[in-house]
């Protein structure tokens, strides 16, 4: 897999991505400011170091995909700062933003919906190059074939259409399209959850190989905690628009400090029947509250098994350092 792509690894010493106090609110109906506001991302701060994989987990509706899209500037942030390779993205417009986008790419969950069925896959993969006016036709063709080889697709298949490929192969096409420019950051939004079990492993292994080879940085968004543990150096847990805990992945799983993280972990069944028989899931009461009107104080207090009142219902716990490289937003960390 060597010769092919010259992806320039980020030479940065500091973080590749710095997200500071980012909000993303969606107005709903009403108009003229009368409607309610969905607080999909509600004050989030974290960093991604160059070359690492940061896993972002949470349940549906917690805002993890929105956060990924906001970092990519596919949707503007309502407030806050997003720095990529040291440059502020939220203030960038037009051509400047376009240039930066060559260095950040996204892979989507559904490989059926994210590829244009009327385009041959060679054109799909070449499109980003064309879009940025890179190379002539011949050079682009060569590059496309290189990238296809890198992701494990037969480079002679450039004339075929997406429907001729299986889900796993389509996901490879999506990865090829992301790699054809020279990204340093790849946001992978549930890249394997639509795939069959035996194919998931192929894609996970491919993403790991590409990272080693090209020093890529991943923001890996997923709901499956076992996959996230497997691929991530660090893990951030999200609940209702907020990050509640971040630590290196071993630490999150061995020593979760936030009760929500602990609940999530206790919910995953083990494959090993002996361990599984011993597992005691902590079952949550009630439903996830609406992000239109999140609970006051700690957002998790309405469902938290260890919430204490009045503090948890009134004071929002800040995301602060509880141990080395381990931050959590909880008044009673590690008590569950």
């Amino acid at each position, binding site marked *: 897999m060597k010769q092919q792509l010259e992806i320039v690894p980020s030479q940065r010493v500091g973080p590749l991505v710095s997200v500071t106090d980012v909000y993303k609110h969606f107005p709903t109906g009403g108009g003229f400011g009368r409607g309610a506001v969905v607080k999909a991302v509600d004050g989030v701060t974290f960093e991604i170091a160059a070359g690492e994989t940061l896993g972002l987990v949470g349940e549906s509706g917690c805002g993890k995909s929105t956060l990924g899209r906001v970092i990519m500037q596919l949707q503007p942030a309502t407030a806050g700062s997003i720095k990529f390779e040291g440059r502020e993205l939220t203030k960038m417009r037009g051509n400047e933003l376009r240039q930066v986008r060559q260095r950040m790419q996204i892979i989507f969950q559904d490989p059926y919906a994210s590829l244009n069925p009327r385009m041959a896959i060679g054109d799909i993969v070449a499109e980003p190059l064309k879009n940025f006016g890179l190379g002539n036709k011949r050079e682009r063709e060569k590059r496309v074939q290189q990238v296809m080889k890198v992701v494990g697709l037969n480079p002679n298949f450039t004339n075929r259409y997406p429907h001729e490929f299986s889900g796993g192969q389509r996901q490879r096409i999506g990865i090829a399209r992301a790699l054809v420019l020279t990204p340093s950051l790849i946001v992978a939004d549930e890249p394997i959850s639509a795939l069959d079990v035996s194919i998931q492993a192929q894609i996970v292994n491919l993403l790991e190989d590409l990272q080693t080879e090209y020093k890529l940085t991943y923001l890996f968004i997923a709901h499956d905690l076992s996959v996230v543990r497997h691929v991530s150096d660090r893990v951030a847990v999200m609940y209702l628009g907020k990050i509640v805990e971040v630590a290196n992945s071993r630490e999150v799983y061995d020593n979760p400090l936030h009760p929500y993280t602990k609940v999530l972990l206790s*919910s995953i069944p083990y494959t090993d029947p002996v361990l599984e028989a011993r597992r005691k899931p902590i079952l949550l009461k009630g439903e996830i509250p609406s992000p239109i009107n999140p609970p006051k104080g700690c957002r998790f207090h309405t469902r938290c098994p260890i919430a204490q009142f009045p503090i948890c219902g009134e004071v929002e716990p800040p995301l602060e350092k509880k141990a080395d490289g381990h931050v959590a937003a909880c008044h009673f960390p590690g008590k569950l």
Partner: protein
Amino acid sequence: MNPGETLGIVGESGSGKSMTALSILNLVPEPGRISGGKILFKNRDVVTMTSGDLLEYRGGDVAMIFQDPMTSLNPVLRVGFQIEEAMRAHSRFDKRQAKARVIPLLERVRIPSPKQRARDFPFQFSGGMRQRAMIAMGLANEPSLLIADEPTTALDVTVQAQILELLKELNRELGTAIILISHNVAVISSLCTRVMVMYAGRVVESGPTRQVFDHPEHPYTWSLLRSVPRVDERRHERLISIQGMPPDLARLPTGCTFHPRCQFKVERCLREEPPLVEVAADQEARCWVLMRNVSKESQAVRT
């Protein structure tokens, strides 16, 4: 399957696990049909049952719940009414009894404030509550078997945990036998005492879950268990990926259908299909090689 037993059917999409379940209900969609074999339920053959008997059998003796509860619930009818209707379609409970059973059933599946909730429409329920309502509907006629086809696949992990606990409880307390169909080996491990692994329309291995997962004999079972990351993994190990794709069922490979993807195949696998034979007490596998005969060194070769 014995009364009160929990059986897991695991396999990838297209392996035939859902068709197996639909066959048990004699519900194979056209143009498919059950082309051979027998399905005995309490010694009566489902394949040759009259349509009148089938109506009573489906939903009466055997109930089924699906992955997406929204597509199985009628969006314009109140949830309570739909559960009542499930009983009215059968003759076990009269009108009065059926009406009276709705609230206790919702309570049984732990839907909060069941009295009010019975008057709600499906869209007012969350995904987890809809699945609970489906389970309540399934249990309405006190079936002896509940078939759950990927019941938690569309749900979040915390909700999945709740539904699995509920199914365990129902099995324990009501003695309802459960067939759980899933692509997720951990979900099977959580609920089922026995497991059946399917590949390309056939059972390739079956036995007590603990035994099969501890000592898988079929290479497909073996690789499937190693292709999923484990939440309890102590150090980073590269996942085993099964090369290639599941076969086209219209053009099955010769010999063992898994041979094109099998890293332990021998010459015989290409020519002759292995029979399902007993490989240990209670455990059956369909393989000429068997993992016990594969040396540790060749198992360690990662693909």
